[in-house]
């Protein structure tokens, strides 16, 4: 009992009941049709969230929606929009508002990887990568923060990358776009703290996604060899941290970057 006194009321409530960590929370996960985004959507649906999944392919969104609907106690909705297009983001959030009237959690996960050595980077690559990874995070956060303020608080979780904090050859554009996300996270955290909105980032290392599996065998093994835990990470391990940052378990955590990388060295 002495130990219980040190835990927050929310934590004690969770330990002593079957309450799910995101019960009845309205959540939007961008880029939710595969990889880390899909793992987060699954985890959040299991934890009782009323979830909106975003992507750029309606057929994929429908498929994921059916899958999540099988175990979710809440309705699952799809939002088709490209996060890099401010008009599409606007219509996406207006659709969300019409349907749910608010938002508690935004996970800015949508992003693209398009690597090239500095001499071969094209302006189009820069526009596309920054458009999704950086500008998309700003556009979504703009609308999300307003909806959260109306509900008295919320959580924004930005998915960055170990490349943002450590850099890597051939990833100048990607690393820059993800490093910008970290700067935004820290500033937004300060701006939104008075509104009870926590803003944090996750910097995943080498995670078992389509992006990682597109590497050739030699490069794949090189990456694994650089990880102290000697294995690739699972998307679910990133989703666990996203869940922590989205729930009341992290109610006094803001402006932080959490690495999920198994001790990877670059």
């Amino acid at each position, binding site marked *: 009992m002495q130990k219980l006194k040190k835990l927050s009321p929310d934590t004690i409530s969770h330990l002593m009941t079957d309450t799910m960590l995101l019960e009845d929370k309205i959540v939007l996960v961008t880029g939710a049709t595969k990889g880390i985004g899909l793992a987060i959507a699954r985890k959040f649906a299991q934890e009782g969230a009323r979830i909106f999944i975003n992507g750029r392919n309606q057929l994929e969104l429908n498929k994921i929606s059916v899958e999540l609907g099988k175990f979710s106690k809440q309705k699952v909705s799809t939002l088709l929009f490209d996060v890099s297009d401010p008009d599409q983001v606007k219509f996406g959030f207006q659709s969300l508002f019409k349907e749910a009237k608010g938002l508690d959690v935004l996970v800015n996960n949508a992003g693209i990887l398009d690597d090239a050595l500095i001499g071969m980077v094209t302006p189009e690559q820069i526009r596309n990568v920054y458009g999704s990874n950086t500008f998309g995070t700003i556009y979504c956060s703009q609308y999300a923060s307003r909806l959260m303020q*109306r509900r008295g608080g919320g959580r924004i979780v930005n998915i960055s990358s170990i490349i943002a904090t450590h850099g890597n050859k051939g990833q100048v554009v990607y690393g820059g776009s993800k490093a910008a996300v970290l700067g935004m996270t820290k500033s937004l955290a300060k701006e939104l703290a008075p509104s009870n909105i926590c803003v944090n980032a996750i910097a995943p290392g080498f995670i078992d996604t389509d992006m990682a599996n597109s590497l050739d065998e030699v490069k794949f093994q090189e990456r694994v060899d650089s990880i102290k835990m000697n294995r690739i990470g699972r998307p679910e391990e990133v989703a666990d941290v996203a869940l922590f940052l989205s729930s009341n378990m992290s109610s006094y955590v803001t402006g932080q970057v959490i690495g999920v990388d198994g001790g990877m060295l670059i």
Partner: protein
Amino acid sequence: MNNTDKLIHAFVTALGIDQSLIKDSLEYNTIPQWDSVAHMALIAALEDEFDIMLDTDDIIDMSSVAKAKEIVARYDITFDD
């Protein structure tokens, strides 16, 4: 409460000013109470009063009480006067 009353109520609560100051000619940043922080509170108040979600361009364009009326009217809200 009609829609004009709702609009005035949003300004009074968000800016913390007397109702008598809410005229069409009142402009953003011309009184200390209507600064950028209060402007975001005003947006939230208007959205709550009319159950709408304004887009980012609307927030930037909302430079006066008259303009606020014009912008809110775009969301199928009618004002009698």
